[in-house]
C-alpha cells in the first residue's frame, strides 16, 4: 500500500493543465471568474471536511470556526502589510492550532455527541469574534481593494489549492493514517484492540482538515476583500460543507469534488431564484439524497464510468 504514487502526481499535474486550458473560458467575465473562485474554495472545503467526516466518520458542523480563523489571520496580517501569499502559511497554522485545541477534547466524543459539540464550539467562536473590536467586531474587516491580486492570479491560486486538497485527500486515503481512520470509523473498540491509537489518529487528521479549511478561509478573504464574522464563522457555511460531501459521496476522494460542483450549480442557478426559502429547499434536498442515494453521486458515477469502459473497450 504505497502512500503516494507517481500516478497521483501525474493526475494532479493533468488536472492543473486542464484547468489552465479552460481558464480563458472561466475568466471571460467577473461573474464567471467569481464562480471559478467559489468552486475552488468549495472543493478545498469539502475535501478537507471529508477527511474527518468521511474517513474518520466524525461529522463536524463546526468547520466555519476554522474557516473564519484562516480568513481573519490573512486579513489582519495583510492589513499589517504582509503580502497575502505570505499570510497563507500563518492562516493554515493558526487554523490547525485552533482545530487541535478544540478537536482534541471534542473528538473523544463520537457520532451525534461530537456533531453537537462542534456546533457549540463554532457558535461560541462566532459570538466571540463579533465582540473583538481589534478585529473589526461585528462590522468585520475591509481589505485594501487597490491591492487586489487580479482574476488570473486568483484563478491560479485557487486551482493549485483545490488540486492540492484532492491530492492530500488521496494520499491520506491510501496511507497508514487512512487505514487507521477507516478502522476506527467502522469499529473504534476493535481498532484500539488492533493497536490503533484512536485519539491520536483523529486529532492528526483533524489538524490536516483544519489547516486546509483555514487555507480556504484565507483564499476567501483574498478574493472577496471583505469579511464579517456572520459570514466567515456562520453556521450556513458549516452546513453547506456537509451537504456538498453528502451530495457528492462521503468517504470517497472524488465525492467532495463532485459535490462542490453540484452544490455551486444548485446554489447559483436553482436556489438563488428561491431566495428566502433557499435553506428550506436545501433541507428538502438533503432528505431527498439521504433517502434515495445515501452514498452520494460518486459511486454512481464510478459505476457509469465502468459501464462505458466495458462498452467501449
Amino acid at each position, binding site marked *: *500500500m504505497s502512500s503516494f504514487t507517481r500516478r497521483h502526481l501525474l493526475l494532479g499535474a493533468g488536472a492543473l493543465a486542464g484547468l489552465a486550458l479552460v481558464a480563458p473560458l472561466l475568466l471571460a467575465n467577473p461573474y464567471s471568474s467569481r464562480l471559478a473562485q467559489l468552486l475552488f474554495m468549495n472543493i478545498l472545503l469539502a475535501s478537507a471536511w471529508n477527511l474527518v467526516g468521511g474517513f474518520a466518520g466524525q461529522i463536524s458542523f463546526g468547520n466555519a470556526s476554522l474557516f473564519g480563523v484562516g480568513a481573519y489571520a490573512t486579513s489582519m496580517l495583510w492589513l499589517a502589510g504582509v503580502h497575502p501569499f505570505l499570510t497563507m502559511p500563518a492562516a493554515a497554522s493558526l487554523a490547525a492550532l485552533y482545530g487541535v485545541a478544540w478537536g482534541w477534547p471534542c473528538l473523544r466524543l463520537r457520532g451525534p455527541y461530537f456533531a453537537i459539540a462542534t456546533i457549540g464550539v463554532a457558535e461560541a467562536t462566532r459570538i466571540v469574534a463579533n465582540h473583538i473590536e481589534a478585529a473589526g467586531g461585528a462590522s468585520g474587516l475591509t481589505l485594501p481593494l487597490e491591492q487586489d491580486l487580479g482574476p488570473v492570479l486568483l484563478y491560479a491560486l485557487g486551482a493549485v489549492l483545490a488540486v492540492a486538497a484532492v491530492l492530500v485527500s488521496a494520499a491520506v486515503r491510501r496511507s*497508514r493514517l487512512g*487505514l*487507521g481512520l*477507516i*478502522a476506527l*470509523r*467502522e*469499529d473504534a*473498540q*476493535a*481498532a*484500539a*484492540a*488492533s*493497536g*490503533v*491509537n*484512536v485519539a491520536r489518529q483523529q486529532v492528526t487528521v483533524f489538524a490536516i482538515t483544519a489547516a486546509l479549511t483555514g487555507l480556504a478561509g484565507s483564499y476567501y478573504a483574498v478574493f472577496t476583500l471583505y469579511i464579517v464574522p456572520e459570514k466567515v464563522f456562520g453556521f450556513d457555511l458549516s452546513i453547506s460543507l456537509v451537504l456538498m460531501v453528502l451530495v457528492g459521496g462521503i*468517504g470517497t476522494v472524488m465525492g467532495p469534488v463532485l459535490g462542490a460542483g453540484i452544490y455551486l450549480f444548485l446554489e447559483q442557478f436553482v436556489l438563488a431564484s428561491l431566495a428566502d426559502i433557499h435553506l428550506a429547499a436545501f433541507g428538502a434536498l438533503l432528505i431527498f439524497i439521504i433517502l434515495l442515494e445515501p452514498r452520494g453521486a460518486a459511486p454512481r458515477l464510478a459505476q457509469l464510468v465502468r459501464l462505458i469502459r466495458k462498452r467501449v473497450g
Partner: protein
Amino acid sequence: MSGSGAGTALVEARGVVKRFGGLTAVHRLDLTLREGEILGLIGPNGAGKTTLFNLLSGRFAPDSGKILLQGREIHHLPSHRICRLGLARTFQVPRPFLAMTAFESVLVGAQFGRRVPGTSAAGTADRCVALTRLEPRRNAPVHSLNLAERKRLDLARALATRPSVLLVDEVAAGLNPTEVRETVGILREVHASGIGIIYVEHVMEAVMDISHRVHVLDHGATIAIGTPAEVTRDPAVIEAYLGRSAGS
C-alpha cells in the same frame, strides 16, 4: 506438547476486582498464563469471562488489583498500548471493519500492532490470512463473509499484531463440527508458533481438547484450576454448571 509445568508467567492477574455499579463482575481474581501454555477459561454465563478479557486487554481498568504482561504492569494502559506490548484478542461476536476487504482488515493489525524489525506489514498480513485459511477470500469485502469466516478474520487481525499472548473469546460458538475442528487446528498452529493462549469457550469438546490447564470461574471468582480431566470431575464445577443434586 506439554509446555505446562514450571514455565514463567506470560500473563498474571493478581487480586483483580471489577464492579459495575452494585454488581461485582470479577472478585479478587488471581489467574496465571504460563509460557507456552493454552489456558482454557470456562464458567457458566455471567461468570465474568468476557469481563476478564476486557480487563486484560485494557478495555476496562480494574477497580483494584494488578495485571502483568511478561512481568510488566499493564492494568493502567489503554487498549492500543497493550496490543503493541504483545497482547491481542478476538471478540465473542466478531467485530469486523465492514467497509474493508479481508486483507485490509488484517493489514490494520499488521500496521498498527507490535513492530518486528525485518518484517513488512503486508507480508505479516498475508501470512495471517493464509494461517486462518482465508486466502480464497483475501480480497472479498468483509460484509460478504459468513460467520465462520468473520471469526477467523478476527483471529487473523489479532495475530497480525504479532502478539506473544492471544485471548480467544468463543471462536467455536455457532460453528458446525467441521468448522470447529478447523478452528481448533488453527489454534494449535498458533500455539506451536510460540504464542500463549487464553481460550474462553462454551464448546467443551474444543476447549477440553486443546487446553493444558483449565481455569473455572463462577460469579467472578475462581472455583477450580487444573487439567481438563481434573476440573470435569471437580464437584464445585459440576455444581456450578448443573446445580446441586436434590438430596444434598
